[in-house]
């Protein structure tokens, strides 16, 4: 691990610079987000991002990678994910295929000789079969191998098993992995690591302790307007304001799942496609399924739509 950060990380010189850089690639940051990324780069710590689904946790990693011009290595976690799928795998099929092809010519290759000589011959081939030729790097190893650094996104870590979480600890603190047949591979440049979690389960204390923690919640009115404007450039200003005010009001209702930023963006896109100019009751009713994903929520909100639409109209005018 070199002490001099690569050129790409130098860009992360201050929280403000990070905020501006992210804005340049269409991600509207907050001071807290920028600060967490800044500290992550300075202290070389992974960032664990928690928050409801669809508030831009994954997108932050993607935007960071494109802002820094670094490759993004993404590891999607799920139940049953193990080292073979996360770190590296021997190309078993290829190894087997090669042995099958060689089987015919085994006599030629090995030649005659006593048992000792044959074993000696064979062990030469072992090294061939367990070389980097037959190594399939998975996201974690890929991230470590990048010579200019990388952004490593470990997505939805809460979906993985506890065993996998424990396995991650070594990589996150040492930035190196040990492959028995090849030895220890350490990162030339430690990647910027971002972990996300939807809090499906409580993460272990050991993991939390090694990470900086960042909570991204639902955005406030102003930030949401900026985000929707950045993502849906074609939207009229008046419609945008009403739409965001409406979504913000919906989050105040008692619902099973609150609409997140990604849903507001989808809704804005839908309304633009429909050439909507104002937010009318009927329009809201017919497109509400873009915003709310549970029928019970849609039913619960239905009677309140007129009031919410009026409030959104008033709120955005004043």
């Amino acid at each position, binding site marked *: 691990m070199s002490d001099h950060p690569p050129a790409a990380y130098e860009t992360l010189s201050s929280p403000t610079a990070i905020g501006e850089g992210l804005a340049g690639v269409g991600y509207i940051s907050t001071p807290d987000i920028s*600060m967490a990324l800044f500290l992550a780069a300075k202290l070389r710590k992974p960032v664990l991002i928690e928050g409801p689904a669809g508030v831009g946790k994954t997108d932050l990693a993607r935007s960071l990678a494109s802002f820094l011009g670094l490759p993004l290595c993404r590891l999607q976690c799920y139940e049953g994910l193990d080292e073979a799928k996360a770190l590296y795998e021997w190309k078993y099929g290829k190894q087997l295929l090669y042995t099958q092809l060689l089987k015919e010519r085994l006599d030629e290759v090995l030649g005659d000789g006593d048992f000792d000589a044959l074993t000696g011959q064979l062990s030469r081939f072992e090294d061939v079969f367990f070389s980097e030729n037959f190594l399939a790097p998975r996201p974690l190893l890929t991230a470590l191998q990048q010579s200019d650094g990388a952004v490593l996104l470990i997505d939805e870590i809460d979906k993985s098993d506890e065993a996998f979480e424990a396995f991650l600890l070594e990589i996150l603190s040492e930035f190196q992995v040990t492959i028995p047949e090849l030895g220890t591979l350490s990162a030339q440049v430690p990647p910027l690591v971002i972990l996300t979690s939807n809090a499906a389960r409580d993460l272990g204390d050991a993991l939390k302790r090694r990470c900086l923690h960042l909570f991204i919640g639902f955005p406030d009115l102003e930030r949401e307007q900026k985000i929707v404007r950045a993502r849906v450039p074609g939207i009229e200003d008046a419609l945008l304001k009403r739409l965001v005010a409406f979504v913000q009001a919906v989050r105040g209702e008692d619902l099973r799942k609150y609409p997140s930023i990604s849903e507001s963006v989808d809704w804005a896109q839908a309304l633009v496609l429909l050439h909507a100019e104002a937010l009318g009751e009927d329009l809201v009713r017919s497109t509400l399924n873009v915003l709310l994903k549970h029928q019970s929520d849609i039913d619960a909100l239905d009677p309140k739509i007129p009031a919410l639409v009026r409030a959104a109209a008033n709120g955005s005018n004043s």
Partner: protein
Amino acid sequence: MTGTAALAGFVSALRSADVSVSPAEAIDAAGALAVVGYTDKGLVKSALRPALCKSTEDGAVFDRLFELYFSRAAFSSTGDAAPGEADGAPAEGDLLALVNSGDEAALATALERAGEAARVKDIRFSTQTAFYAQKMLKALGVEAMEADLLEALQARTPEGEARAKEIIDARRAVLKRAREYTERQYEVFGSGRTQTFREEILAGKSIGALDRADYARMRPLVEKMAKRLSAKYGRRRKMKTGALDVRRTVRANAGLGGVPFNVHWKKRARDRAKLVVLCDVSGSVAQYVRFLLLLLHCLGETVEDLRAFAFSGHLGEITDDLNTDGFEGAVEQILRRYGMGSTDYGQALQGLEANHSSAIDRQTSFIVLGDGRSNYGDPCTDIFSRLAARAKQTIWLCPEPPALWGSGDSEMPSYRPYCDVVANVSSLTDLERALDRILARYGVA
């Protein structure tokens, strides 16, 4: 106070409020502060937050404590290097002069120092604020001031009177400041500890002796317990063991000439708990039922399948009542609906076998919560033994202490041989321990 000392104090405040901050995290926080500096409070806050608080619940505590802790000008006094020290410390000699000088910063520094001397950080209960305020006054040198006051009063001159009044006012002002200071310190260092202390007491208190006022406070406690149990037993289902599943591999590759291209590994499935709970909801046991059901309800996903039955006289299934949102109301209703009859275990067991016998299979834990007092009716131990034999394990949770089992109409000794565990549960802690044991049986199959 230096920046590091301020940080250390803040970390100990967080710890006292039950936010676990490890030394490693404190070092991270110090590193973060070194990077952003101490000048901007907003920056300090957003730099400390990712390093110190690691969950959303902790976030709220962090916000509250940050405002309280750093409101007492820890930073301003760091900034201009403690004016009290700079201009020859008027605080040491003359408290009166200090109060009258109107130098806020100097007074704050003096209070801060007196607070250190009086060890106000050790405060645990709100009732101690007066005590610590007095200790602070002493540390501030109020005794000299009182001697002056006595002198001035004894002089019996108009100047003396005026001076006495001045001293009394100053003393009152300082006392007020000292009290404010200790109250704030209590908020920072004490309230969390008081909360923990109260919870410890509640958890150990006999459930039968709880009054209604305690219920509201029990709820978060039960949730905490449930969370602990879920963390221990929840979501550990499939894991690759690394062993080759030879049978499946051979079968899958039969078409490939027996060359094992597709390899299958053995998988372990961890089964989640299936529980059947039979609750005696008559008078004395009702409170225990409330907490057992609440605890089970809070376990949520950890328990795959929970079926609950309530009885005093006749038996009824209450599973659906429990799955509604208004849990508290549902329990009240259950207690009212089933709690009236006179207790008859025999009848309840008959009802369970006749109508719901399929509920119990070999994956099921059969939990009975009751005191076993059956009003001298037939205990139907034969039915109980059949049900118990079918279950994975049978646990009887009894609120009565073992000494009373078998006394009067208690049928505990007749049921006991068929149970895997008979546990006396009198407090929430007992309940947690019993459930821990039940869930532990659902290991990797």
